[in-house]
């Protein structure tokens, strides 16, 4: 079975709830009205019973006794639905206002000195009656039993009408609320259909579509805004990927073009062995560069696919930093810069990967520090994790470049290939993926001639 639509569910729920509530309310009303009628009837019947009892009690002599039927008839005038019967001690009817018979249980209850209101049907008509022993005024033929009954046809009629109206009201209200629920839900969900339509229209070449946020109910505004933000991120990631592809092509074109031109020039005429050797040596250098770039790109691709799983070993960052500084000693001395480590920190992670990340940052710092500058490596440990900051004096990086600094092949000056041919332009991107593979964060800030890269690794 196909699941019900949201609109159908809401409409159905509205109808059921409304019918249920009206049903309960109707049931309570029905009980109350019924009880009220029963109360009213009891009072009328009890009053009449009292009256007849009085008449019987006052008839102390024969003459009065013979006049009784007339008095009883008079007492019933003006009460068309009222029936009265007086029975003698043998249970024979001594007086009856109508031909209707009184049910046996009523009379038996009277004989037992009980007053109970009993409802019965005589022919088509419903009756409610009350009976009692009469106070003995006359000894002859006693003790007498008096029974009064009320035709409650109009009450029953009223109740029937009332119940019919109630059922009608239930049906009508249920239907109306269902329709209303359906309409309101359908209207409220209209923006959802629009979100669906927009999502359906999005493709790689059409990532700039956004949902209009104006006039949306708050619940959907959140969804639509999250949806738009997702599109922003997708568009951004897609753009970066597209840039990356273009950059790869560009980066590959340079060495391939070098190789091709060199080889073509070399074979354009005959040369001695040394000349050929030089061409091959130069080619090997380009190949090495290409191979390194492929290695780096594979590393990044693995990071993108979450295949970069760092080993879990205790790494003494102060010791690693000192070793890395020792490794870079010669280069730093040539560049006329000094490297200083301060603080201490230990972390669980992949020693090789962390070494590589730190080496890339140190390397980057050496390249961008002017002669005579001091590069600081600060290590700090707290309960939240460790922080490694690498700070170098150097030209301030304009703020607009900072967020893209870790992009692959991103260069401040596109025309300049930094660091000569050995540098692939992927170093900082690799730092970022290593840090992220460790669940950490990498930040960069640059102000007043000081550039600071900061790695936070969770404890």
């Amino acid at each position: 079975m196909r699941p019900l639509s949201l609109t159908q569910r809401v409409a159905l729920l509205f109808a059921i709830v409304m019918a249920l509530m009206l049903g309960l309310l109707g049931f309570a009303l029905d009980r109350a009205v019924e009880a009220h009628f029963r109360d009213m009837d009891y009072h009328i019947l009890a009053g009449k019973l009292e009256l007849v009892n009085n008449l019987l009690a006052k008839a102390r002599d024969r003459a009065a006794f013979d006049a009784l039927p007339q008095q009883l008839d008079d007492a019933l005038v003006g009460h068309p639905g009222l029936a009265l019967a007086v029975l003698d001690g043998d249970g024979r009817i001594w007086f009856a206002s109508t031909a209707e018979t009184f049910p046996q249980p009523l009379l038996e209850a009277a004989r037992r000195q009980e007053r109970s209101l009993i409802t019965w049907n005589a022919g088509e008509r419903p009756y409610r009656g009350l009976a009692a022993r009469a106070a003995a005024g006359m000894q002859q033929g006693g003790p007498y039993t008096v029974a009064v009954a009320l035709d409650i046809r109009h009450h029953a009629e009223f109740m029937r009408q009332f119940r019919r109206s109630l059922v009608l009201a239930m049906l009508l209200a249920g239907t109306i609320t269902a329709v209303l629920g359906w309409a309101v839900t359908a209207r409220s969900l209209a923006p959802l259909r629009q979100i669906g339509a927009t999502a359906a229209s999005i493709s790689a070449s059409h990532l700039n579509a956004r949902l209009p946020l104006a006039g949306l109910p708050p619940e959907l505004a959140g969804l639509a805004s999250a949806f738009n933000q997702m599109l922003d991120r997708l568009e951004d990631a897609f753009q970066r990927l597209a840039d990356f592809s273009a950059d790869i092509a560009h980066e590959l074109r340079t060495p391939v073009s070098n190789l091709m031109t060199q080889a073509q020039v070399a074979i354009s005429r005959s040369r001695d062995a040394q000349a050929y050797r030089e061409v091959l040596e130069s080619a090997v250098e380009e190949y090495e560069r290409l191979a390194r770039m492929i290695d780096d790109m594979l590393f990044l691709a693995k990071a993108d696919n979450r295949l970069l799983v760092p080993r879990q070993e205790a790494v003494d960052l102060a010791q690693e930093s000192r070793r890395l500084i020792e490794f870079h000693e010669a280069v730093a001395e040539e560049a006329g810069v000094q490297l200083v480590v301060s603080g201490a920190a230990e972390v669980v992670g992949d020693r090789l990967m962390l070494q590589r990340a730190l080496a890339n940052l140190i390397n980057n710092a050496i390249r961008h520090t002017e002669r005579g500058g001091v590069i600081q490596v600060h290590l700090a440990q707290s309960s939240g994790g460790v922080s490694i900051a690498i700070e170098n004096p150097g030209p301030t990086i304009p703020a607009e470049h900072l967020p893209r600094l870790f992009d692959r092949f991103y260069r401040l000056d596109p025309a300049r290939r930094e660091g000569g041919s050995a540098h692939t332009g992927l170093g900082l991107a690799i730092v970022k993926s290593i840090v992220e593979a460790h669940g950490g964060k990498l930040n960069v800030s640059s102000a007043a001639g000081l550039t600071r890269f900061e790695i936070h690794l969770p404890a």
Partner: protein
Amino acid sequence: MKILIVEDEPKTGEYLKQGLSEAGFVTDLASTGADGLHLALTEDYDLAILDVLLPGLNGWQVLKALRAAGRDLPVLFLSARDRVEDRVQGLELGADDYLVKPFAFAELLARVRTLLRRGRAPASPDLLKVADLELDPLRRRVTRGGRRIALTAKEFALLELFLRRRGEVLPRALIASEVWDMNFDSDTNVIDVAVRRLRSKIDDGFEVKLIRTVRGMGYVLDA
């Protein structure tokens, strides 16, 4: 020294064979896993170089069969795939080294020599000499033409490496690993600068230059 190469890519196989032969090794080339295994079980080799992806029997299976037959010759794997599982699987099966394509030939050569050297008597602490250069590992002294040369600790370690592997072309990655214990890929010129500084100390002012650059390959020390 006899080396078995099992490589199905004909061009790679030929170049490996040529390169290793010219480096002074006796080599056999097989192009399928089954042929390679047969050769390894019938001939006596000092080392095997196995490609991981081979038709029929792959490199892992060849290695397993070799170890099952009680052959404990060192095995170096070549693979175009660099997945951690691959590396782990290879090392668990008893491979001795693992090289990812594309690799530098000098790197392969250096690793082959390291594997072949393994298990032999440790390098003697005797005086190391090339031409008029002398390095005394025990007293940590270096002299050239009788004149004392002052070196930093790392420069000393670098020169000792060159002397112990005299005549071998040492790739940059190997130097970084042996001298500084840095085993990550790096695109720095750290090694070039370090070698240049060492060279200026031991070669400047002398007729015979001992340390040579082999472009695109690395550095070599020889008289």
